[in-house]
Structure formats: C-alpha cells, structure tokens
C-alpha cells in the first residue's frame, strides 16, 4: 500500500465515532490534567493504561495522543495565570506570561500561547513526518558529549533569559543543582544527603518541588500582598475579543513562531533535555533577535516572550516521538508510559516499527494533529473565563489554589511527605522571591543537573579521561559554538549597556 493510501485509511479510522469519542475524551482529560498544578501528562497516561488494555490498539493510541497533545497547551495556562509552570518546559512561559496577567492581559497571553501551541504542534508533526526516513541517523548523532554540552547550553540560556539578574539566576540554579544531588547515585550506589530518610532515597521529586517553588510561594506572596493577581487592567476587557487578539499575534510575529517551532522540533527530539532546553533557547533567541529598544520589555510582559517558548514546547511533542518510536528510547516520563502502551498492544518500538506498524503510526500522527488543534480551540474558547481568575481576591484564590496544589503533590504518589516537600520548597521559593532572585532557573537545574552529571561522567569514560572528545564530533562542535555565541552575546550586551550607561551619566 502506498503512503497516500495508508494516510487515507488512517484518516478514515480516526473519523469513526468511537475513535472520535476517544480523541475528544483524551483531549478533555489532557486539558484538565495539564491545567491542575502537579497533575501532568504522565499521571494522566499512567491512570489510563488499565482502561486502554481492553481497547483496540488504534483506539488506545488515539486516546493517548489526545492526552499528550493537549497537556502542554493547558500547562501554559497555569504558567500565565499563577506563575506556576505545569511542566518544566512551560517554565519559560512564566517570564512574560505572568507579568501580562498582572497587567490584566491574561486573555491576550492565553490566546497567543494557545495559538502558538497549536501552530507549533502542527509544525512539530510535519517535522516528525520529514524525519521518519532519517530518525536512526539523528538519534545516533547525539551521545553523552552532546548531552553534556546541551545541558550547559540550557543553563546558560535560562540565566541569559533573566537579563540583568544573570548572577542571581545562577545562584538559584546552583541551589537547584544541590537539591538534585540528593538520593541514589547511579555509579557508587550511595544514597547522598538523605539524612536517613527513606523518602529521599530517590531524591526530591520534580513535581512537588516545582509546585512548592512556584505555586505555593506565589500564593504565600499573594496572601502577604493582598488584592488580586491582576494589578491593573479592567476585568470587563478580559473577553473573547482580547483572547482572539492574542490568537492573531503568533501569525503577526510569524518568524518568532517559526523559529520557536524549529528549535522545539530539533532540540525536542533529544531524550531528557529536549523540551525544557528548547523552550529557553527559543526564548533567549527571541530576546537576542529583538530590536535593542524592545529588549528591555522582556520579562515585563512582552507577548513574544510567550509565543516563542509555547511554539517550541508543543513542537517538541513531534520531535520527542522520534527516539520513542525509532529506538524505543523515551524522551520523557510521559513518553516512557506511552511506550508501555505500545508494547501492551503488541507493538515493538524500534527501527522496524516504521515498516511493521506504519498504519498505527499514521493514526498517531493524525490524532496528534487533530488533538492539538482541538486543545487549542477549547483553550481559546474558555480562556476569557479562566483569565478572570486573575481578578479574584487573594482571600478566595489562595486557599483554592493551595488546596489544588497540595492535592496535586499528594496524588502523584499518594505520599504525604510530598506535601511537606511542596510546603518546604514554597517557603524557600518565597524567600528567593522576596530577595529578588529569579526562580526560573530552579526547575531547569533540577531537570538538567542529573543529566549533566551523568553525561559528564560518561563523556570522560568514553574519552579515556580527556575532554578532547567534545571536539571530535560535528554535533558537539556545533553545540559548543552555540555556547560560545551565547556567552559572547551576553558579554557584548554587558559591555554595550555599561558604555551606554556611562555616556548617559557623563
């Protein structure tokens, strides 16, 4: 059967009533799990596995595609409204999304984020289709030296994205690295810094730490400050019109959307580091390519700062499927669960899946595209109602959000100590916030530090103790050049700004 006939068959399978039902169900579940702090795509997929066993393989995959394509879309909503990234890749969205919410422009930000997500998702899938013939070569190009350099690039990108607070951002990043050192060490088998607590054998978990550091600390701050999240703006203006204005912006700034999607699909294909690094790289590049006069507005509520990371982190979904399908190497916890769904339904991820199960792969591709569009449409239609949350008084909002956040922490593993951890990180996050330290580098450090440690160790072992291996391979040389470029850009800005300041003072 030729490719067009396979696509036509997959499309007609997707339009069957039960398939559409599962797709819509997946999208709704994904949106709900994405918008609630703590509950993400991984939890949703894991909970759905038992139900999927009795389904046909295509229905199960359609349901899962619905969930996977919609959680990042709604994850941006909490990033914008509550300064709490739904998942680590949504963290970059908080930088300008939350300031927009504080200005009463949450509807605009959600509209732009949803449309950028939808467009990014489609571009990511187009990328996946284009990559199918060369997936193997791409995965084999990236080994420990490249991952090590990518983690450095990620940490530099996030610190650069905080502009003048570069050094303070590095301090928060260092705190994240220390936190990530707790627990079982993969080489020595030692349990590090656990203080004898069984709970810390596997280190601090990402979700309670993120919920605490962002949602809980934000709510403590809001409670202390009083009033509502929105410090300006008019609630009457938060309507569908404002959201639709936001929807137009990813097209107005089409080069930002395209660049963000390209970074998301390319970097997103790399297991582990992909999505988070890609979002921050897209953000940093958006700042770097803005007109000098506009750069100051980043971090204060520039809509481009929402479009770039959101286009990137939805485009990564297509990229992340590349190693999952072609090698059975899941790029994230979510992909690991999806992998088990494939195996449970008799599919064997690996080099031959593209030939043996190509019909199912096309159903997955089409379901992901349709789900992404549907998720964006639902988010856009409900955005104005959700945006009104930013006008709710803290006395009402704080208890409700805190309750959801702490339930979210608990429900992930039914573990009470996760709630304690979330509260502890909430207090630490609040202190950082009050001292003027940008918290944004914390999640990235938490995600990247273990990968950095592992890939550094592996690089040294592969290179017989010499870092020369970093300059032996083309991909690592390209990434190294990007790191140098980022640092030069920072130094140029630093020197230029000082000169401008000196001339102004003279």
């Amino acid at each position: 059967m030729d490719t067009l006939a396979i696509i036509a068959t997959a499309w007609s399978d997707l339009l069957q009533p039960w398939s559409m039902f599962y797709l819509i169900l997946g999208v709704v579940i994904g949106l709900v799990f994405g918008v609630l702090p703590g509950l993400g795509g991984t939890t949703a997929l894991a909970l759905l596995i038992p139900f999927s066993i009795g389904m046909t393989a295509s229905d199960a995959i359609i349901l899962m595609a619905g969930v996977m394509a919609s959680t990042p879309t709604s994850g941006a909503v909490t990033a914008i409204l509550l300064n709490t990234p739904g998942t680590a890749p949504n963290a970059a969205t908080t930088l300008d999304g939350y300031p927009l919410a504080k200005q009463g422009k949450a509807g605009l930000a959600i509209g732009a984020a949803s449309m950028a997500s939808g467009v990014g998702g489609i571009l990511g899938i187009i990328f996946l289709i284009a990559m199918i013939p060369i997936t193997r070569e791409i995965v084999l190009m990236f080994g420990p030296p490249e991952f090590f350099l990518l983690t450095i690039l990620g940490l530099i990108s996030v610190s650069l994205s905080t502009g003048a607070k570069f050094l303070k951002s590095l301090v928060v990043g260092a705190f994240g690295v220390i936190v990530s050192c707790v627990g079982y060490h993969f080489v020595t088998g030692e349990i590090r810094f656990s203080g004898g607590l069984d709970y810390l054998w596997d280190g601090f978990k990402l979700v309670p730490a993120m919920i605490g550091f962002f949602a809980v600390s934000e709510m403590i701050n809001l409670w202390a400050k009083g009033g509502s999240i929105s410090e300006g703006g008019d609630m009457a203006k938060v309507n569908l019109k404002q959201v639709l204005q936001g929807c137009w912006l990813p097209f107005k700034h089409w080069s930002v959307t395209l660049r963000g999607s390209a970074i998301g699909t390319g970097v997103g294909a790399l297991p582990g580091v992909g999505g988070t690094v890609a979002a921050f790289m897209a953000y940093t590049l958006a700042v770097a390519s803005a007109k000098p006069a506009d750069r100051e507005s980043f971090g204060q509520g520039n809509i481009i700062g929402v479009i770039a990371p959101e286009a990137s982190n939805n485009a990564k979904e297509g990229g992340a499927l590349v190693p999952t399908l072609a090698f059975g190497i899941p790029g994230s916890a979510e992909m690991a669960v999806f992998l088990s769904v494939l195996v449970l339904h008799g599919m064997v991820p690996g080099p031959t899946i593209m030939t043996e199960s190509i019909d199912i792969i096309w159903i997955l591709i089409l379901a992901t595209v349709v789900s992404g569009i549907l998720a964006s449409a639902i988010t856009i239609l409900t955005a104005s109602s959700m945006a009104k949350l930013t006008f709710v008084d803290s006395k009402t909002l704080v208890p409700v959000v805190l309750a959801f956040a702490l339930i979210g922490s608990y429900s992930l593993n039914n573990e009470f100590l996760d709630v304690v951890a979330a509260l502890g990180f909430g207090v630490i996050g609040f202190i950082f916030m009050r001292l003027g330290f940008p918290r944004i580098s914390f999640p990235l450090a938490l995600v990247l530090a273990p990968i950095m440690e592992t890939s550094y160790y592996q690089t040294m072992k592969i290179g017989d103790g010499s870092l020369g291996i970093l300059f032996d391979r083309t991909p690592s040389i390209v990434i190294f050049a990007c790191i140098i470029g980022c640092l030069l850009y920072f130094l140029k800005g630093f020197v230029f700004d000082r000169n401008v300041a000196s001339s102004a003072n003279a």
Partner: protein
Amino acid sequence: MRLFAAMLALGVAFATPAQASFPEKNIEFVIPYGPGGGFDTLTRKMIPFMEEYFAKKGADISVVPVNMPGAGGAKAATYTTRAKPDGHTIQIFNIPGHGVSYITGSDGGFDITRMTWITQVGVDTYVLMTSASGPFKTLDNLINVNRDLKIPEIGPSATSSMANSIVWSTLNKGADFIYGYKSSQEYATAVLRGDGDLTMAVLGSAKRYNKAGDYNVIAHFSEQIDPEFPGALNGAAIGHPDLDAVNLLRVVAGPPGMSPEITNELHAALKYAVEHPELQKWAVETQNNAVSSATPAAADATVMRALNLYKQFSHLFK
C-alpha cells in the same frame, strides 16, 4: 490422641476463616520500577487475567499496579517486606537485581531469603552482541583487544551488568563499565553509536533490537542456543558451562510469613494469567516469550539457586 487431632483440626478451621475468603479486598501489585519497562509491562499484562480469575471465583476485586521506583528496586522491596502478609500486597522481583544485598552480604533494608515466593513468571537468558559495523566480529576479537572492554550499562546493580562482570571475570578479560544509561535499549543503542564495545541484553530484547540486523550476535548464554542466532556460542562451547546458568528471573513474592493457602491461591491466579492464550499470544508477538509458572516451592528453590550462584562471584559486586 484422636480427640486432640480433631480439636487441632477444628482449631485450624476456625483460625483460617479469613483465608477461605481470600481475597477480601483489592490486591496491591508492587512494581519496583517506573511505568514503561519490561517488569511493568508484563505485570500490567497479567493483571486483567488475575482479576478474571478472581471474578470467576466470585471475588469482585481489582488488582492495582503500584509503581514504586527508587534505590535500584530496594524501596519497593522494603515496602513489600513491611506489608501485612495477608496476600493483599505482592511484588514482582528481579533476581539477581533484588538479591544484591544477599549476594554481597550488605544491609539492603530487606531480607530477600525471607520473602514468600509465589511463582516464577519469566526467565531470561543473556545474549552478547557487538555493533555490526564495529571491529568486533567474534569472541576472540573481544578477548584479544589490547585494553579493557568498554561496556555501557545502567549501573553496578543492574542484572545485565552483573552478568557482564561474571562473564568477563570468568574469561579473564578486563571490563570498564560506563554507567548511567537509563535502559537496555539505551545502552544497546550506545554500542551502535560507538560509546562502548559490546552489550549484554536478555533474549527477548536482543531479538527486538536486532530486527534490522544492526548487531553481531556473539554468544547466547543458555544450554540451548536460540535458533534465531545459529552462529552464536554458549558457555559450554567456550569451556565454561556454568555461564549458561547466569540469567534473569522475574518472580512474584509476598511479604515474609504468608500462609500456604493464600500463597497457593495467588499462585493459581498468576498461573491462570500467565497461561492465558491472550497473554501467550502477546508474549510471542513482543518477544517476551519467556513466561512460565512454577509452583511456590519450585520458585523458592530457583531463586535460592540463582542467588547462590551469583554469591560465588560476590567479590565482583562489592
């Protein structure tokens, strides 16, 4: 005397009413790793058939999979050890992975020898592979290279890592492990990329990874070499038949002190699940065709035999 025996029998009958109605509530099936791996997938595949078995016996209960990753599987095993031995908490174990503390004589937080073994649901033998595009085509090529062999692996307590240690120690060849890969698929891919020289994968995985012919299959450590790998050597062929006993067991157990009645009932449920035609069909399709269902006594004996074999090489794992 007869009166005493009758009273004793009566006493036993009164003492075990709860066991007669087992299971009374949902059964927690602990998986010592995160969702998505081989242990997780096999457990989740067995669960619906276990529920079907109990439903046929009139018990409308659920078997709930609980992923409990952490500390190389020790966290889950400690949890299961501390659970009430009433049959409502069971776990799938990795042998020798969960036996590292017994093998090395260290304190792992639980005693593997005290678990109540219910049945064995899988046994996997190891296959030694190198990259088809690399320089190592035979076992002699590997042994004669003038340096230690570089072997990408998950970590020192991973079962494949232990198998590698035993094989290369037996063959008097140095092994330099590169730890930190997340799964066997990842370290097998690392060999294709050139991170290391060879990979040791269980039979089902080896067949999956080698579907596109990317690897040289050098050895299959099993008494019977799989027909798919006709050119492979085994332990006997290279003069070390003991290497053919180095394998990976998937065994289900409950906490120490579970009663024989409950153990037998769980064994029957797992046997029903493992032998179910649908599960067997899936096992063949996905190359997980190593499922079996030993009796509790046989499972116990198999586990101890495997642990004691690894104990002979305990110096390698310290």
